[in-house]
């Protein structure tokens, strides 16, 4: 009760003081506005970058493990040379693995190459050709837009069928249904049985829609006899991913006859490695950003401190009066802290208002939106700046001797 009345009184004084010195308050606020705009944009940009990254690696399922000969992130040349000596992963190893895993929902082999694809007189010169099985639909998290995906019989058998990406379909077929027609892949004819839904691109590097999926049997017969396989393993659930990884590792070591105590001669890659690497990069950016932001807020805070010292000096008499009628040190301290925090909060809100359209501009380049957490952060930071910057002036006011203060004109 007592504190809320005192706090309301503090707010009222703050509001009066700000209104009485509109220009001065406005100019002081400018520093905070700039600081808050920087904070907001920085935080939004970092969130946007992160979201964009997660979106673009979403083709790698979060619950999918990629068994490969080498790791995705190799830190040294020596390590790279060592991993490069490893033996290829074979189709037989894939079969053995698929049979023995209990914690996997789907296991699919994957081999790829690039080949020109033709239909009538239209050609797509370099299309990503993937050889796999029916299980790839699950491990790759694909959706079929038209027709159907490979059946398990087709995957193992020799019938030349294919499922094509959305972009490949639009490139080759103009005003025509793709499903049911025959296209030529690297000189061999395949029947289109399905078209995939649009997926976008992977890290902006290549399109996931310009691809053709064919049975792995066809791939090895026609294009590449003994390729190095990637085995995609989808865990039964995201929670079971780590257990699945352990099981997978044990089984794979057995299959590849790795002696106990020797290190793995294969790598198990997963999406979170990308995230880890990315987090390191973003961490560096965030630190640099924080420093710049901190600097601009520091300057803004100095402005607040300065103006609060002026405000305290101007209102010495008022402080004396308040103390004479019973205001305690704490009350006076709170009064000036409230004033400083109010100025900063105003700056923070204006800063958020300005950052909003800038965020919309930013949204053209990355999936950036001003999130509630950023708004909360900006408000918190502006209040904190006010309290920190206002403390010294408020402390000076609180400690004034009432007689001396009253004598002041």
């Amino acid at each position, binding site marked *: 009760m007592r504190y809320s009345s005192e706090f309301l*009184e503090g707010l009222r004084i703050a509001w009066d003081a700000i209104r009485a010195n509109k220009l001065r308050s406005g100019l002081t606020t400018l520093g905070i506005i700039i600081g808050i705009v920087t904070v907001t944009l920085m935080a939004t940009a970092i969130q946007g970058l992160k979201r964009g990254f997660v979106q673009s690696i979403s083709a790698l399922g979060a619950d999918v493990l990629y068994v490969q000969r080498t790791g995705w992130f190799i830190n040294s040349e020596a390590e790279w040379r060592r991993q490069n000596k490893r033996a290829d992963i074979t189709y037989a190893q894939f079969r053995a693995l698929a049979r023995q895993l209990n914690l996997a929902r789907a296991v699919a082999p994957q081999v790829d190459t690039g080949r020109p694809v033709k239909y009538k007189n239209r050609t797509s010169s370099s299309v990503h050709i993937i050889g796999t099985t029916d299980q790839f639909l699950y491990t790759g998290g694909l959706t079929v837009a038209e027709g159907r995906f490979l059946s398990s019989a087709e995957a193992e058998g020799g019938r030349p069928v294919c499922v094509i990406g959305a972009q490949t379909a639009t490139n080759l077929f103009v005003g025509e249904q793709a499903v049911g027609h025959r296209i030529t892949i690297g000189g061999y004819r395949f029947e289109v049985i399905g078209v995939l839904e649009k997926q976008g691109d992977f890290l902006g590097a290549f399109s996931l829609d310009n691809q053709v999926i064919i049975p792995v049997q066809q791939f090895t017969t026609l294009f590449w006899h003994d390729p190095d396989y990637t085995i995609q393993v989808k865990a039964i659930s995201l929670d079971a991913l780590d257990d699945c990884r352990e099981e997978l590792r044990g089984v794979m070591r057995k299959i590849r006859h790795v002696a106990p105590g020797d290190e793995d001669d294969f790598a198990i890659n997963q999406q979170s490695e990308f995230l880890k690497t990315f987090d390191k990069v973003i961490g560096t950016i965030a630190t640099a950003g924080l420093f710049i932001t901190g600097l601009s807020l520091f300057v803004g805070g100095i402005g607040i401190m300065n103006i609060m010292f002026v405000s305290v000096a101007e209102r010495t008499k008022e402080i004396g009066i308040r*103390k004479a*009628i*019973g205001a*305690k*040190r704490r009350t006076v301290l709170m009064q000036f802290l409230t004033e400083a925090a109010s100025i900063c909060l105003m700056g923070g809100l204006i800063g958020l208002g300005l950052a909003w359209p800038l965020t919309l501009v930013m949204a053209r380049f990355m999936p950036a939106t001003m999130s509630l957490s950023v708004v909360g952060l900006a408000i918190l930071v502006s209040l904190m700046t006010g309290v920190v910057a206002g403390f010294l002036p408020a402390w000076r006011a609180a400690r004034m001797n*009432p*007689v001396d203060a*009253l004598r002041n004109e």
Partner: protein
Amino acid sequence: MSLIHLEKVTRRYQMGGETIHALREVSFTIARGEYVAIMGPSGSGKSTLMNIIGCLDTATSGTYVLNDVNVSEMDDNQLAEVRNKEIGFVFQTFNLLPRANAFHNVELPLIYAGISAEERRRVTVEALTSVGLADRMTHKPNEMSGGQRQRVAVARALVNHPSILLADEPTGNLDTKTGEEIMGVFEELSRQGNTIILVTHEEDIARHARRIVRIRDGLIASDEARR
């Protein structure tokens, strides 16, 4: 029973290398309900004495007992509480908050006392009515005459029902007629049993009090009851 008891109260000021003795071992007692005028030439130490009695200032040495409590040993916060609950101040220059209206000026001590909003409203209106300003509550100080401002100050001093009303030259900035009006208010308050201490250097004003203490050079020169 004494309300105020000063025992060898000394107040020194250090001005560069010079020491100014504003009060030299002043001792006296004031009982509840008394109406005392303090007189003396300029610079004799009247305001210094008032500030010490009003807990705005503390003595360099000596003891001050107010309401059986030794005030000389209190810290800042305790003094603020005493000022809020026990003391009502009226100053020569009114000392109202310029941006606040009459109502808010009078309400302020109640806010610091932690009294609820409805209770504050009731008591504030009562205090302003008692000084004849019921129709001026929303006026700011610069929209009122000197006499009205001093009445607001009196209402503010009384609103917490303090033990003592202290007035340091309350008529100093008012013309004779308005001054007499304010003195009328004090007269009435005294009749109701309030303890009043008044600083003045006008004999006409001091005549209203029932006891006159004269100070010279920080010492009590005379202390006599009137009539």
